[in-house]
């Protein structure tokens, strides 16, 4: 039992947790932006899969990681653009169109995979870049400053997202559009433009979330490789109560428990059915939320298409 508390175990759990949290962070921060502006994007998983495949394929062909990343960004942006057109201009129900985009991304990424690659391949992805000095700090250095670039960027996104949402006029516009689009509209804030912006941003970040898996953390592409991760990312936005820091807390909690769960399975002294162990992150996430009785309400206009009501 003491095994689980040894320093090396804790270090390995924390590093695992941080790696696992990375795709969640990208996707959930992107989703936070779109939800803050009043748009529920359930298509995250589809965007992730397409981003993951396209970036993988570009890297496979060109061996240029940055080109791969760029292509994930472009694909994510295009998916976002389509989603924006459908939910903003055509005022389609956000939940269903999101599921539609999910199915499209799921199928399309697999189809392209079959047509262009045909079988599972690997690439040389982003490698670990120890941050000078910081990575030398005992324990902490190993956990936090010994990761690949996309991991660092994911964590940097959190303060950036907080800053943009709370300190800039853009953030003010986003928040007001998500709470009361009529009011925002009445003072000349373009609800359409803001939502286009956040949905496309969400698409881009989802695409990068996929890329972070296929060309940085795992360096492979396999059909449906995200297997529900995108939906968890959406859930984490609710966990984080639409705050960047809350999303970070949720992503870390979920991933850490995931890492602990994997570790517990291999500790001889604990004999827990693996199925029960796998449940742990899900159960604990709920329990933490129950214990932390939050009074935060969702953005009032979430899922409501904006229409001047003529």
């Amino acid at each position, binding site marked *: 039992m003491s095994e689980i508390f040894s320093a*090396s*175990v804790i*270090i*390995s*759990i924390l*590093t*695992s947790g941080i*790696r*696992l949290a990375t*795709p969640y962070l990208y996707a959930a921060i992107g989703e936070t932006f779109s939800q803050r502006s009043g748009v529920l994007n359930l298509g995250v998983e589809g965007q992730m899969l397409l981003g993951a495949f396209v970036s993988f394929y570009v890297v496979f062909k060109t061996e240029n990681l940055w080109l791969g990343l760029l292509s994930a960004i472009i694909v994510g942006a295009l998916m976002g653009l389509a989603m924006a057109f459908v939910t903003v201009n055509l005022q389609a129900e956000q939940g269903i169109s999101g599921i539609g985009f999910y199915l499209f991304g799921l199928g399309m990424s*697999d189809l392209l*995979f*079959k047509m262009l690659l*045909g*079988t*599972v*391949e*690997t690439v040389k992805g982003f490698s670990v870049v120890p941050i000078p000095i910081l990575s030398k700090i005992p324990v902490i250095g190993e956990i936090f400053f010994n990761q690949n670039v996309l991991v660092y960027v994911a964590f940097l996104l959190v303060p950036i997202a907080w800053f943009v949402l709370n300190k800039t006029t853009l953030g003010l516009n986003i928040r007001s559009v998500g709470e009361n689009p009529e009011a925002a509209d009445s003072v000349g804030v373009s609800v359409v433009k803001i939502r286009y912006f956040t949905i496309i941003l969400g698409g881009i970040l989802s695409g990068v979330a996929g890329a972070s*898996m296929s060309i940085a*953390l*795992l*360096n*492979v592409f*396999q*059909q*449906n*490789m*995200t*297997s*529900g*991760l995108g939906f968890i990312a959406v859930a984490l936005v609710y966990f984080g109560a639409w705050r960047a820091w809350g999303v970070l807390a949720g992503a870390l909690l979920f991933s850490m428990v*995931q*890492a602990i769960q*994997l*570790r517990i*399975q*291999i500790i001889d002294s604990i004999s827990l059915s*693996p*199925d029960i162990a*796998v449940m742990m992150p899900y159960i604990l996430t709920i329990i933490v939320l129950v214990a932390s009785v939050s009074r935060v309400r969702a953005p009032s206009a979430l899922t409501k298409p904006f229409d001047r009501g003529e």
Partner: protein
Amino acid sequence: GSAAAPAEEAAPAEEMPAEEIPAEPFKVAIIMPSSITDLAFSQSMYDALVAVQEEMGGESAMEIVYSEGMFVVDDAAAAIRDYASEGYDLIIAHGSQYGSSLQEIAPDFPTTSFAWGTTLNTFKDEGINNVFAYEANSQEGGYVNGVMAASLSKSGVIGVVGPIQAGDADLYVKGFVAGAKSVNPDVEVNVNWIGSFSDVALAAEAANTHIGAGADVLTGTAQMVPGAIGVAEENGALWFGTQASQTSLAEDIVVANQVYDWTVVLDEMLANIKNGVYGGEAYTITLANGGLVMDYNSAFDLPADVKAAADAAVEGIIDGSIEIPVE
């Protein structure tokens, strides 16, 4: 009621091979849970079918159609029934979850052959005579892999990444553990079941967990393992594959794979069908019958004594001197 019509349709197909041999190609349909390119379970059967087809003389002799991604049991049932009513000669339900559906459908098409894997149950006891069954003794290759893994491990810790603890995967892991222990009873084999066949990221993190726990040799089964192989490669740990050859994913570290070669099973089935036996037989691919093949990575410099130990294990399994406990 509904069974009558399709059965009649299927009837001519039955008589045909007896009269004039090559006029109509032999029609095979396969239903499988994941995709034909999964580098694992589904692909192993599809590749075998294609191999048999070539052997028989190409598309004019044998026609293959497939339904992939049939993870929904209910959809698979519809597919099976549909293929049967379209007069396919052999319908392979390549997934243990499809058994119930076969039990339903097979009696309605008495002159169509069905095959169900992986299991040994042909429903003969239920009075159904047109279902073949096939299984892989994956514990055998698992054992051989285990022997090599324990011999190669310097740390004495080995990690296993599995989907859910059942069926083929469970057998493989049991064999693997037994093999490892046979070499070194003190070896620590840590097993992680990640609860999913598709979560590549979690499989990778399970591998990381093993590495963190000191493992220097890893193995795993099912289609989500590529993530784990990547982690093994990054950390210089060795990898043992199963179901299909995974060498292409990491040429430096994959030591060996247990490869399923279902052609043995297919050949026997086809022979039986030709003789008018539509089912009732169960086949197992084993090291002995060549259905399980140990595939060594030529790029990996396997120490001769380890190779010898592996060969000895194969021998032992084939001649029965090694018995692998699988409860």
